[in-house]
């Protein structure tokens, strides 16, 4: 018992130390959380009756792009880029919508699993093409983006099909507390269950290593090619989740879902992922997605022309990233 008493302060000190170390390593993410709080406060100021329903609507609307941002973050951390995230989402969305329409729940579950496997396969094709042909990733994924987009339109040339009721139910409404939207819980649980174990594994280290310094990674004994292929496959997996989220939020399959690819790149850049590879995580991009969505909401509440609000989003993106690199430069010089 005395030993137990003795270790408690030690453990607490350790915990504090670890938290401080985490904060130091994740200053960018903490800054984004600060920005998020600022924009939430601004929203409340502009629209005093903004409350739990608004938060719920926000959570549902950001779900597809949040998955897209996580997908893009993983491949960019590994030193690549994937311009076919949007079309992969479309492919997953139409496939699930066509198969699920008017079917029972057990079959719906099978469809979800099947679509996720499809996402992994499609992503792995991207990765294998990049690694084996040595054609630049930007070219390969631009080309495959047309292939996936065309395939999606072949499956369903106008929005249609249907979503299983349970799929729509798990993301709509609150979970207990009205301030806790189910969509946010789904996002958090899925990302945590898939990403955290990966990040802690040797594969997670290899992912960052390959993106950071491929030669040093090779010399450290990492299989560089297979690691990149798995990274692309994971991007396909999260893109498929994004596609399922599209189906679930819209209730139908979306063959031409919009500019998710470039929005995902914007979100990861704002989220602190280095386009050069090797740096960043998935929490930053998710928060960045919420911030960008709130900017749009706030500009809408402020009565700004929607076209202007797109331009303002771009300006915020450049401003924040510039500010971040200025701070980084100051740090290096000091």
């Amino acid at each position, binding site marked *: 018992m005395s030993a137990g008493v003795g270790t408690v302060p030690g453990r607490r000190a350790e915990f504090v130390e670890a938290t401080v170390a985490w904060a130091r390593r994740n200053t960018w993410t903490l800054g984004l959380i600060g920005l998020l709080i600022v924009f939430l406060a601004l929203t409340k100021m502009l629209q005093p009756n903004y409350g739990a329903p608004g938060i719920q609507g926000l959570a549902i609307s950001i779900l597809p792009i949040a998955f897209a941002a996580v997908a893009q973050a993983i491949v960019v951390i590994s030193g690549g880029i994937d311009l076919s995230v949007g079309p992969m989402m479309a492919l997953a969305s139409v496939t699930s919508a066509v198969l699920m329409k008017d079917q029972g729940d057990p079959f719906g579950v099978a469809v979800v699993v099947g679509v996720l496997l499809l996402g992994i396969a499609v992503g792995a094709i991207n990765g294998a093409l990049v690694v084996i042909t040595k054609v630049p990733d930007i070219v390969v994924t631009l080309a495959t983006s047309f292939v996936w987009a065309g395939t999606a339109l072949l499956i369903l040339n106008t929005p249609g099909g249907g979503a299983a009721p349970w799929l729509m139910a798990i993301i709509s409404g609150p979970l207990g507390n009205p301030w806790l939207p189910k969509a946010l819980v789904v996002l958090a649980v899925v990302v945590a269950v898939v990403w955290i174990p990966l990040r802690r594994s040797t594969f997670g280290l290899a992912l960052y*290593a390959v993106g950071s*310094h491929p*030669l*040093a990674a090779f*010399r*450290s*004994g990492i299989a560089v090619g297979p690691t990149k292929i798995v990274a692309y496959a994971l991007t396909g997996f999260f893109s498929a989740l994004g596609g399922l989220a599209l189906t679930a939020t819209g209730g139908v399959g979306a063959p031409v879902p919009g500019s998710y690819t470039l929005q995902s790149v914007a979100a990861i850049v704002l989220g602190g992922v280095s386009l050069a590879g*090797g740096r960043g995580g998935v929490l930053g991009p998710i928060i960045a997605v919420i911030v960008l969505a709130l900017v749009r909401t706030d500009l809408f509440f402020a009565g700004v022309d929607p076209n202007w609000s797109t331009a303002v989003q771009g300006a915020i993106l450049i401003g924040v990233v510039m500010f971040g690199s200025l701070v980084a430069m100051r740090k290096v010089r000091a």
Partner: protein
Amino acid sequence: MHETDGAPDLLLNATDIAKHYGAVVALRSASLAVRPGEVHALMGANGAGKSTLVKILTGGVRPDHGSILVRGRPFAARSPTEARRGGIVSVYQEPSLIPDLDVRSNLRLTQTQPEPVRHWLAELGLPDLDLADVVRDLPLATLRIIDLARALAMEPAILMLDEMTAALPANLTERVLEVIGRMRGTDRSVIFISHRLIEIGAVCDRATVLREGSTVGVVDVTEGSEDRIVALMLGDIVRSGTVVQSEASAVAARAADAVPRLSARNLTVGTKLTDVSFDLYQGEVLGVVALEGQGQDELFDVLSGSERPTGGELLVDGDARSFRHPADAIRAGLVYVPADRAEALLMQRSVRENIALPFTTRFGAWGPIDLRGERKKVDGAIATLQIDTRAAGEVRRLSGGNQQKVTIARWVAGGVRTMLCFDPTRGIDIGTKQQIYQLLRDLAAAGAAVLLYTSELKEVQLACDRAIVIFGGRIVAEIAVADADEPTLLRAAYDLRPEELMPEEIASAAVAVESADPAAVAVESADPPAVGQP
């Protein structure tokens, strides 16, 4: 397991290794035999095949033929992981740590236990290193030590150190050599590659010398064996009859009150280049001789305006100048011919455009290009350099030699005052080399000043009037062309003085020169060493 070739107790036995890339023979017949418990030096001049042999032993390259046995078992590695499993672990010239991960994660990546690494870090003089530090934030010397500690912790049969000490300060070098020395007499061995003969003498038992892709000798390292190693590295020197005879004119032209075209005064660049001073006069070709990575790259970067010195000053025609951009250097008449032609040329454009580029882009040359004037100058330059223009449409289709001529022609066309040539004859054929030597002589005769760094020592006597030798970022010798034969230059490049010295004297002299803190090292030698003085 049961080798009967008379060497059953060898830890590593590589015999008759050959490797060629296309028509280029990198290794002809190399062999390397390492006994258990010895520190074995691998020596060879540039292009001797040293780096190819290293790549074969580390799994980067597969040999064409030959056999490699480690502890009697065949060794054939296709990756560093397989080499490690086969018993060979390497520490490379540049760190192989992932910059964005912390030290602990880097250890986890190679499945190395942190405890033995900590032990070796303490042995190597870094007991307080925090394994949670991110690699990117650590200084280079620390990374080299972590690399070495990690390799030691893997307990390989053979530890290969490739220019490991190049980036280390003197006190850490000492610790490293001391730790390596402790491997002697154990059941494990070290292959040690270094440009510093002093270190070879201090820590190695034997040395294998490569020349032109073959093993030409194995030397027991004892007192005075440095000379034998250098002799083996050089082989039979073919004396060339065309030693420059014009030094008299160049020296004569240099009157007592002549202002040098270019003067470096105490130039310093970080830790790479220290206190370098020299004068370059018009009408002369000044050679620069150095082993790889002794600071010559930084020197040329500073002179050509790509990098700013951290100390010292630069005078052009007696006036102090400071270059912020290569354009400033070009305006001051300093033009640069790099070794890597891809760095200087627009490979997809024509010979004509490439030659015309520097003088049509000069400031004040906006507006329409004077095509007739351009054509005249370009044609003149092409004729002067005898450039083969059959494939003039795209520079990348020219031979290497002709490409190099284009990089020189672009400056000749505009009129040369001072030309900085960094190994301009690297990788080109002998005929074109001769033409380039002649061209440099002609330029000098016409009143230009030429600074020529060369990795081929015999070029000094073929093209230069005198040569300066850089070692460890300092000018260690200035040699007149008449004395600049290959053995003299090579000895100077290794910072060996002409007179015989006992190895311990050499070692203490080196320590005294390299160490900034005299208290950290016990210097027994009574008389101050002469090394480091130009």
